């Protein structure tokens, strides 16, 4: 017993060092996830790969909520390719699909995965793949395999090679707070600090090509919008108008930036042409107009306004300026983000004084509440629209959480320290 506890403690200590800042806990999966076995990959003798590829594929598929991977300790064998697979064994374990593979080095400095996806019921290989990456990017290799398997089995493009931006706030002594803008892989690994400040950082967002980001920083003791190039890390200050400079949103073609400015009185939506710097005022109302999000066609913008007394979502045509109200259900709908097909919105919806994430079906005009926690905010949708990330509170701390667009799958990504918030899911990066 004592030995077991000591082993557990050693394991905890070791994992807290290697663990990324975000850890994943699945708290609600799909009712009937597909049983799948990801067999540990074989490898060429002498080759050392820093990560367990099969284990990363397993957690990717598990996190999607649509698969229930078989535990390794239940596997009856460790086949490395299709010819070594005894379908009967896998069938007796109730597995529908098996993934096998081997790692090798075909070119110095790279690692190659040859893998196969097998259908246990038809006893057939349904996917054969070969992927090579630089030896220092084994996680990327694993996420690539995950994407291919996910696409084959769901017919939906995989989003395991995407990244996220988020803001952390760590309280230090003497009423001071350290704000950080962070970027990590979508599973929380490979975290890096993009910007660090003693003043607040807000509203991180991606350019449509995933090569730039924009955010608000108070480093001059006033809010201003900055653009940062992810390849060079060069930062440029885009705005420093009097009053609010907030909620930047790149247009779908990347040429313009929607934003909120209050330089002319109350907060309104503006669009800046990034090449010329020309500024166009899109809304003009004494109420609060904020949180712009582009519709996929780039012709209109949805935004939050309290012009009707309470915050609701409206849509404005960028060239004509004509405004129509979008949400009518409930007394608080805010910060919409548009699904890639333009057929739905995710937003913050208040019910009985609690703030939840909801999805609005624009065709049927129906609101469905996806979360049950309170103080949920900042929804950000995956580029394949399968899931969304949002910020909530857990154990008195700001945490990130994910929920599938049908509400069936939920998991939390708590941070080890400090409060994290404002997740922004990247577009497809390849």
């Amino acid at each position, binding site marked *: 017993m004592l030995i077991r506890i000591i082993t557990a403690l050693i394991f905890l200590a070791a994992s807290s060092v290697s663990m990324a800042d975000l850890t994943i806990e699945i708290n609600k999966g799909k009712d009937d996830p597909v049983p799948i076995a990801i067999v540990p990959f074989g490898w060429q003798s002498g080759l050392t790969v820093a990560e367990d590829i099969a284990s990363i594929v397993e957690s990717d598929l598990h996190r999607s909520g649509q698969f229930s991977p078989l535990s390794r300790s239940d596997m009856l064998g460790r086949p490395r390719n299709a010819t070594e697979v005894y379908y009967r064994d896998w069938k007796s374990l109730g597995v529908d699909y098996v993934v096998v593979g081997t790692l090798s080095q075909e070119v110095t400095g790279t690692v190659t995965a040859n893998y196969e996806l097998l259908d246990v019921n038809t006893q057939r290989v349904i996917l054969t793949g070969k992927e090579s990456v630089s030896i220092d990017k084994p996680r990327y290799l694993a996420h690539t395999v995950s994407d291919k398997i996910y696409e084959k089995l769901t017919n939906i493009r995989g989003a395991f090679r995407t990244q996220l931006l988020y803001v952390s706030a760590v309280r230090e002594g003497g009423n001071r707070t350290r704000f950080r803008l962070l970027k990590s892989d979508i599973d929380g690994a490979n975290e890096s600090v993009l910007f660090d400040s003693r003043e607040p950082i*807000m509203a991180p967002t991606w350019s449509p090509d995933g090569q730039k980001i924009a955010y608000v920083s108070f480093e001059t003791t006033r809010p201003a919008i900055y653009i940062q190039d992810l390849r060079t890390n060069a930062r440029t200050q885009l705005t420093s108008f009097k009053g609010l400079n*907030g*909620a930047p949103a790149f247009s779908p073609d990347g040429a313009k930036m929607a934003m909120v400015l209050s330089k002319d009185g*109350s907060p309104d939506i503006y669009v800046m042409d990034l090449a010329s710097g020309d500024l166009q005022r899109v809304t003009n109302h004494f109420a609060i107009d904020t949180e712009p999000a582009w519709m996929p066609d780039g012709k209109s913008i949805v935004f939050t306004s309290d012009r009707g*007394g309470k915050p609701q979502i409206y849509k404005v045509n960028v060239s004509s300026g004509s405004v129509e109200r979008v949400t009518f259900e409930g007394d608080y709908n805010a910060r919409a983000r548009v699904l890639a097909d333009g057929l739905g919105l995710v937003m913050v919806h208040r019910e009985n004084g609690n703030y939840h994430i909801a999805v609005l079906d624009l065709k049927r005009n129906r609101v469905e509440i996806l979360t049950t926690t309170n103080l949920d905010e900042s929804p950000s949708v995956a580029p394949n629209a399968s899931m969304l990330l949002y910020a909530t*509170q857990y154990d008195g701390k700001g945490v990130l959480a994910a929920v599938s667009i049908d509400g069936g799958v939920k998991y939390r990504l708590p941070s080890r320290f400090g409060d994290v*918030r404002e997740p922004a899911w990247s577009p497809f990066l390849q």
Partner: protein
Amino acid sequence: MKYQAKNMFLGVAFFSALLAGCASTDTDASGQEGADKVSTYTESTDSMNDSYNSDDMANLETVFYFEFDQATLTVKARKALDAQIVRLKKTTGPVRLEGHADERGTREYNIALAERRAISVADYMAINGIPRYRIETVSYGEERPVAFGQSESTYSQNRRVELK
């Protein structure tokens, strides 16, 4: 009540329109925040040397509180502001008003709400004789709470405008 609120916002829009004329000078100043900070600091050191002023400052409220989702001044906030205005009229330095909100609701809506609060205080000061050019408003929304946790007492401490 609704009509009144509308008038107030129109008023805000009007004042801001007046300010828009000198917006460019204002923006330029933001590039020299360091210098601004130093001058503010020097000024408070000066008033520290003046025993009358320092006593005055010590007894005065520098934080003005608001109701949930409201930007109108409470009777208590007005009283506290009246006392500050008496003091500020004896000085000439810049006045920085920082608006804040509690964490309920979205961050961008809250930063807009907190700006309304700072502008409410600025308008009240201006109406009562503090020159507009001395007053700067900045909104921090819910980004800089002073109290933590999810209770009404926490929230009420965070719904505030701070005079700096």
